[in-house]
């Protein structure tokens, strides 16, 4: 069991999450993928914390979870808002923010 295996695992998970963010059109699924990316990073932190035998990584994970919670709350609020405005939650509805 080596550290690299954990790194590769978390990286693979991260990439899967990123594919979801980049490819899906449904806003909810994009958000789910985003959470999964954060989770992949958390795994990396925990592994590093174990490998280096220090608690700093775990503290960091607590921070990430906190921020993720706040971010999800706001993102879901935005989803609700978009839904109320457009009746759909396609990403294409959010194209107004350009020149």
């Amino acid at each position, binding site marked *: 069991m080596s550290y690299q295996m954990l790194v590769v695992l978390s990286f693979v998970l991260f990439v899967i999450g990123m594919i979801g963010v980049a490819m899906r059109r449904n806003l909810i699924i994009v958000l789910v993928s985003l959470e999964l990316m954060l989770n992949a990073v958390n795994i990396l932190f925990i592994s590093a914390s174990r490998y280096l035998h220090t608690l700093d990584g775990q503290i960091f994970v607590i921070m990430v979870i906190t921020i993720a919670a706040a971010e999800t709350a706001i993102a879901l609020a935005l989803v609700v808002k978009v839904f109320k405005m457009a009746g759909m939650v396609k990403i294409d509805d959010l*194209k107004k923010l350009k020149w």
Partner: protein
Amino acid sequence: MELNIVRYILVFPLLGFLVNGFAGPRLGNKTVGLIAGGAVLLSLSLSVYVFFRLIALPADARLITDTVYTWIHSGSLTIDFKLMVDPLTSVMLLVVTGVGFLIHVYSIGYMHGDRSYPRFFAYLNLFMFAMLLLVLSSNIILMFVGWEGVGLCSYLLIGFWYEKDSAANAGKKAFITNRVGDYGFLLGVFLLASAFASKGILTLDFTTMAAHISLISPKILTVAGILLFVGATGKSAQLPLYVWLPDAMEGPTPVSALIHAATMVTAGVYMIARMNFLYVLAPTALEVVAVVGGLTALYAATIGLVQNDIKRVLAYSTISQLGYMFVGVGVGAFSAGIFHLMTHAFFKALLFLGAGSVIHALSGEQDMRKMGGLKNKIPVTHAVFLAAALAISGIPGLSGFFSKDSILSAAYASGHTFIWLLGFITALLTAFYIFRLIYMTFYGESRVEKHAAEHVHESPKVMTIPLIVLAVLSVFGGYIGVPQLLGSLIGWHHSDIFVNYLAPVFHTAPALPEMAVPTESLLMIGSIAMAILGVFAAWYVYLKSKMKTAQSAAGALPGVYRLLLNKYYVDEIYNAVIIRPMMLFSEVFLWKFFDVKIVDGAVNGSASLTQRASNRIRKIQTGDFQVYVMLFLIGVITVLAYFVLR
């Protein structure tokens, strides 16, 4: 002695300014007047209190300080916001707040009905604050703040009726002319600061400077003294920077009385008296001061002889009297200069306010050729005006006589015979032009225009009472400085209270040589004779012969008359030599070339460059979230590749 209430002398006018400036229009005119007058009255009461605290101290320890906070702290240089009251300051304090208060009261009546009433009182209070700061400051930097502050208020108040082009222009002229002087003043301050710093003294406190002045070489002191005096010529309207003061008469009359007669224009005299420790060691600079003062006194008096606008006559008279003050401090008789400053503040403020009362009575007429015979119609104004005129002419027994005489005798005693002669002739001219004004205004036939004649009326009490108080001061104010020669006649030893009071401030100044009693008596009789001669001549020319003599004199010497009437064409010369070339340079080079081509070109060029570039690259902003994610991905890969492959 440290006394923490001194700062409140400053605080009240500042508060008055803030309240009237921000809330004035909502308070109603009555409250505004009350606040403004009340603020100055509080300052006056505090000044009186401080004055009594000061004279309770032993004569050689009369110094009250009040350190408010450290204002500038940079490296080893420390400048405190520190106020100081010594005998000289206390005299200025009482004059400024006293005359200032009377003028505030007068203004309540005079400005009645003006639509910018609150603004006027806000400016007036701001002026009081700045002037008191100038007087109270204990170092030259803080003094400069007040010095600039009064300049600003002067500008604001001259241009008070800014809808009139002439008023707006006069304000600008005053401000710009003062800038020229202030440039010299600042250079002087910098020179002093660097000179002291090179000796390891990193402060510009007056007391510290006075204690260490002997470390500085006399050459530097002379240059610094002359540079500071350049500032004084601007502020106190001396040759060659006097041109703004006659035009400043565009402002409301109380402003002319307060700023351009009694207080601000005397700041230069005060500054030289304050820096006496420097000027004593720089005799050349002092000589310059005296000569410029003497020449200005005579020069302005000659112009005053032929002016027809009642306020302009008084303006030239002010310039001339300021010249006297500079003669006083210039010949080393600092106390005499300050004494004349004080008495002049009384009678000149009175003359201006009286003129204001006349103008008020005639519904705004300022031309003396359209006055005359007003004696019985406005008796109170006439009485106080006459008192002031007698005082300024130097008729024995009134304040102006004592102060003017002490300056002239000091000039003679110190050996400046030429300057004495200038002052001596000016005394004659002074009496002549001021009584010319009196006879043209109050006596003879009425030349008042019909519609104005119907409304002639005495001013309300709120205006006449300050006039009467000032008249009392003009008549009796001189008795605190009776020359020893006259005092001893009636067995009054130490009759020269004023000089003795100020003596500790000017202790470095060498005593003037004693004059023999006959010489001094002769001088005194001479100047009395000149004054009476002047009054009599004016009576003969303007009353007895009904101005026929004046006309024939003007006809006999048309060149001289025109030269004087046009004020020696100085404005025209300045216009041709300085203003025109500068305007031309500004228009052709600075505006048409530098501003349009280079400044605007750079600004517009960079703007259009940005716009063109933005037009090209804004296509990237598709607004599609997932395209952004891809771009982000590419960025991440680039960074990763750099770390892995380097």
